[in-house]
């Protein structure tokens, strides 16, 4: 596991509040969350369903606006950005690995992976070269022209990881990356994430409640009822929820 003591903070949230709904049906998803993730570490946000993990993830990558509190990513305050600036910021700095992969079914693996570069304005040739190289790196170089529907779950998640890394972002956001995979595939995916994504200048934030992969984390942030309950080292933490 990498050391995080002196590394630069990648993500910081202070007193983040977010609720959904109105009146009696209002749900307070985040109740003043203070969270920090540092460059060079893989931090997992864990906790029972409904504790606010995914909401926190959405807020810290700027896809959801908090009601109160501050979110800073690589020193830049997200709440001060306009919507278009936030979109461009995400495009430059954040890579995503989704639970359901979200690979566009009519595009080949190569095309899906090249999207972040195309969105950043790269030429098709350059984008596809980089995408092909990364697909080889994640071990599915022979599947470049294959449609997602023709790939296994593990292979699809590898394509998703390649897509998250292709534009060399500094923050990788992973939402339940192993939820749709069997145990072996899940471990392989996390191993791959550590090997390919984790670098000194990069931070990987993983939301999960899959206790089988906790050992891959540098730190584990435990959430409960919209609050950050505690920070643990992987060996110190045992999930006490189902």
């Amino acid at each position, binding site marked *: 596991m990498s050391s995080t003591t002196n590394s630069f903070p990648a993500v910081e949230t202070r007193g983040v509040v977010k609720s959904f709904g109105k009146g009696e049906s209002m749900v307070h998803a985040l109740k003043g969350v203070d969270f920090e993730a540092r460059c060079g570490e893989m931090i997992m946000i864990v906790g029972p369903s409904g504790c606010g993990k*995914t909401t926190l993830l*959405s807020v810290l990558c700027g896809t959801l606006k908090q009601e109160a509190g501050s979110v800073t990513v690589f020193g830049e305050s997200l709440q001060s950005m306009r919507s278009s600036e936030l979109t461009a910021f995400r*495009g430059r700095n954040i890579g*995503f690995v989704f639970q359901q992969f*979200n690979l566009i079914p009519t595009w080949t693996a190569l*095309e899906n992976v090249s999207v*972040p570069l195309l969105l950043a304005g790269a030429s098709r040739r350059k984008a596809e070269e980089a995408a092909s190289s990364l697909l080889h790196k994640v071990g599915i170089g022979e599947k470049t022209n294959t449609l997602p529907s023709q790939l296994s779950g593990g292979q699809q998640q590898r394509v998703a990881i390649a*897509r998250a890394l292709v534009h060399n972002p500094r923050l990788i956001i992973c939402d339940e990356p192993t939820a749709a995979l069997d145990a072996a595939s899940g471990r392989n995916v996390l191993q791959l994430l550590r090997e390919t994504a984790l670098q000194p200048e990069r931070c990987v934030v993983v939301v999960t409640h899959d206790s089988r992969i906790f050992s891959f984390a540098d730190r584990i942030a435990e959430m409960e009822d919209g609050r950050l309950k505690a920070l643990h080292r992987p060996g110190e933490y045992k999930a006490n929820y189902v």
Partner: protein
Amino acid sequence: MLRLALKMLYGDLAKYTMLVCGLSFCALLMTQQSSVFCGLLLWTTATVRNIRAPIWVADEKVEQVNEVVSLREIEVQRVRSIQGVKWAVPIFWSIQQARLPDGTFQGIQLTGLDSTSLVGQPSHMVAGTVEDLRLPNAVIVDQVAIEKFKKKGITLHLGSTFELNDKEARVVGICKTERSFLGQPYVYTTYSRALEYSPRQRKELSFILASPKDEFRASEVIAQINQLRGMRAFTEQDFAWRTIVWYFTNTGIPISFGIVVLLGVVVGIAIAGQTFYLFVHENLRFMAALKAMGAGMGTLTKMVFLQAFTVGFTGYGLGIGLASAFGTAVLKKGQPPFYMPWQILVFTGAVIVLICCLSAFVGLIKIARTEAAIVFK
């Protein structure tokens, strides 16, 4: 990204086919019905287009060419007396019944030309010569007469005879004419013989055809003729347009065709709009993922508009292609009427563009309202 947007569209073959079919049907319906409508209106001016003359003079109450209020024959002399008139000749035009050898009747449009000049003669002879009209009992029939008589079991050819008002008419020529709104064949003869073929009336001159002298403009001569009491002159083009406008404003034709065209638009909007909305809705999660990955609304707008316009132009092309194929087929047969000016193509194209914009806009509203955060749900 635009290439990938197209791949996204073509990848959903069922929806793509549905969209293209819906828009093709819409374009076909609008183009075909509008062309039939224009063709029908054009048919109303067939008499003006078959009897070519720079200036038409009619009774002052006449509003369109298929409405004849007869003039006195002396009026020809009055028109000739006008300074700017180069020549003026009488013409007879009325609907008569031709009696066929087997005793059945066929309505015809009897056209009597000035026997000296033969002004107003058919421009395209298929058999015989126009000059033969000067022979006794001579008539020239058009291709419609051949068709109509054939349906009644009689094959008309040079030398065939039939009766008009108990008098023999002998076919000396066959010509090709523009089909008329009334659907009856044109039968040409000389002015004097046309009067013999028709029941006697107090006034028998239908129109006067005239031409301005070289040094006069048609408008000047028309102004001079309009000074004469009881007469009104038109240029050929003006008379044709007045006829079209008359049918447009005095019949239910525009309403009935308009309803069909409107139905085409509604069907297009309903099918294309709904299907495109479904297409966007089904891809919403992926659009949200693209948004999360840094695709701005500008990029997504370009992608959605490209998808909408791709199906739009494909549908448009297929629709007008089918309408043109229909037109080519019916023009060979001669009916139903079909005339497809460029304005119809522009109109249909504009409606398709409107439908595409509307569909894309509705889809974009959905995308804009979707938070990128849904990708985590």
